[in-house]
């Protein structure tokens, strides 16, 4: 029997090895996570629903199966959390909304079905920005989720609960979703790893949509290797999602630990302007570290990124408005005002402009692929600033009290890779002078998640461990 703090310190890879060798029990680890949730949940509001009884029963089943020699793989017995946008059979799935406050699906989304089949233990459903339509996670219906490094700051969103739960040790691994950056932004602000894989690589079946053509569901984890292990479980074609890919799924974790000597990385010029001094300094330090371990760093350009605000917002708002139209008519007062206004704007955006925004996606991907002809991957900061201060709804403030321009400071960096559908992984590059996490993205060719994991894991090893949140 280990002490709870030690149990919570293990990443998925370490837990899996200890479970397989019967050195640790999924039951004691699950109990440690549930105790941590009980201790920190009032402060951080990471969860909308905690499924403690189910978790204990699943952990017991995992323990029994492993004891009898039926270890299913790296996620057998691992305590995980799901963003509450993921449908779970018999378990409330709210979308972070008042509208679906009592909604209990009669089916599992494919992501959870695959994790459950792999033996994962569900701790609960995680807090998010209402219907994933915002980047702050200042949720008026289910509580304001807070950043574990500084509880006055936002955790980022929309998968804020998923990011905050990882860093505060309230889950060993979580699932988030990403339409304009909603996996990578909380990973950046909370100081963990967020992987938005190639569009279509992971089934979206059963995940409440924000924008069908930009939505992705993917891992938020403590380490790059954990993200690789989790993507391994959830990736692959699903006949229930017509957009899901038939591309073969390689062994992602096998590339973790490989060197990057001679690999070429392209810094996206358009994403190096407008950075806060501490993000710029940390990003430059990360580039220097990548050079030290043998990567060649060069500069590339994707000029159409200049148009990202129009392209991304139009597609997102219009597709979201179509999905929400019925509730918008019958229950407009049950939306947060920030979300309702975005949906109303989507209703009134002319159709020809939506099609034009969709056409522009090919131009952006063409430019990204041209940049990748000279490089193995692209790199960029994940956001221009560290986590800002909590305000109301979709708004956030700088410590000076000035409102944050959420597009210029945040979405401009992440949304381009939803528009192109490329894999993009966010990982920490250090802490600011105020002790807030800073982050960069590694962006690959379509379906080259392995290349992204290889570069990210090499950098992560060279960077060393990130200091943990002092406040907890």
């Amino acid at each position, binding site marked *: 029997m280990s002490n709870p703090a030690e149990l919570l310190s293990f990443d998925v890879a370490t837990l899996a090895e200890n479970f397989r060798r019967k050195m640790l029990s999924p039951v004691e680890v699950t109990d440690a996570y549930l105790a941590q949730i009980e201790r920190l949940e009032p402060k951080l509001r990471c969860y909308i629903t905690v499924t403690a009884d189910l978790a204990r029963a699943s952990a017991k089943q995992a323990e029994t199966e492993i004891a009898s020699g039926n270890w299913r793989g790296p996620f057998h017995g691992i305590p995980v959390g799901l963003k509450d946008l993921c449908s779970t059979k018999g378990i409330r799935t709210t979308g972070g909304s008042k509208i679906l406050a009592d909604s209990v699906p009669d089916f599992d989304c494919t992501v959870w079905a695959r994790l459950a089949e792999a033996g994962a233990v569900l701790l609960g459903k995680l807090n998010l920005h209402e219907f994933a339509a915002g980047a702050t996670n200042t949720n008026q219906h289910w509580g304001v989720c807070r950043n574990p490094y500084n509880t006055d700051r936002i955790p980022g969103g929309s998968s804020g609960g998923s990011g905050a739960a990882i860093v505060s040790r309230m889950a060993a691994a979580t699932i988030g979703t990403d339409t304009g950056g909603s996996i990578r932004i909380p990973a950046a602000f909370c100081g963990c790893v967020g992987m938005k894989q190639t569009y279509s690589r992971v089934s979206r079946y059963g995940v409440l949509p924000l924008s069908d053509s930009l939505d992705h569901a993917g891992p938020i984890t403590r380490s790059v290797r954990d993200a690789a292990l989790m993507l391994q479980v959830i990736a692959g074609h699903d*006949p229930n999602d017509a957009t899901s890919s038939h591309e073969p799924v390689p062994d992602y974790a096998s590339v973790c630990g490989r060197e990057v000597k001679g690999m070429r990385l392209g810094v996206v010029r358009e994403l190096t302007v407008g950075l806060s001094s501490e993000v710029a300094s940390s990003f430059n330090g990360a580039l220097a570290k990548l050079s030290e371990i043998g990567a060649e760093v060069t500069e590339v350009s994707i000029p159409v990124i200049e148009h990202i605000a*129009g392209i991304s917002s139009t597609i997102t708002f219009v597709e979201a408005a179509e999905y929400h139209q019925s509730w918008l008519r019958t229950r407009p007062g049950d939306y947060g005002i920030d979300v309702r206004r975005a949906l*109303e704007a989507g*209703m*009134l955006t002319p159709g020809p402009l939506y099609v034009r925004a969709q056409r522009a996606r090919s*131009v952006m991907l063409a430019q990204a692929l041209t940049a990748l002809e000279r490089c193995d991957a692209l790199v960029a900061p994940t956001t221009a600033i560290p986590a800002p201060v909590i305000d109301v709804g979709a708004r956030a403030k700088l410590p000076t009290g000035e409102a944050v321009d959420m597009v210029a400071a945040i979405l401009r960096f992440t949304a381009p890779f939803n528009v192109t559908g490329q894999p993009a992984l966010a990982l920490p590059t250090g802490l600011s002078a105020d002790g807030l996490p800073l982050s960069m993205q590694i962006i690959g060719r379509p379906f080259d998640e392995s290349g992204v994991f290889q570069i990210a894991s090499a950098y992560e090893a060279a960077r060393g461990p990130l200091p943990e949140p002092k406040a907890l």
Partner: protein
Amino acid sequence: MARLTPETVKVLAHQLYDYDLSDDSAVSVAHIVGAMTHYLRRLDALPLGGLQPPFGYATIVAEAQRINRGKK
């Protein structure tokens, strides 16, 4: 910036969708839609002519098959 007034968006929302926008919402929505329209007009500078929008026929076929699978 496109000239879209709060009054216009109120009328459009009502006549297109039978949806009543509050005065505050109309101001905000007029601003957001105006800004998006402005941004998207700037896309005229891109070579979009002849490019297919990403609505694949394979998806239409797969969805049709899924609908019919559900009937059996």
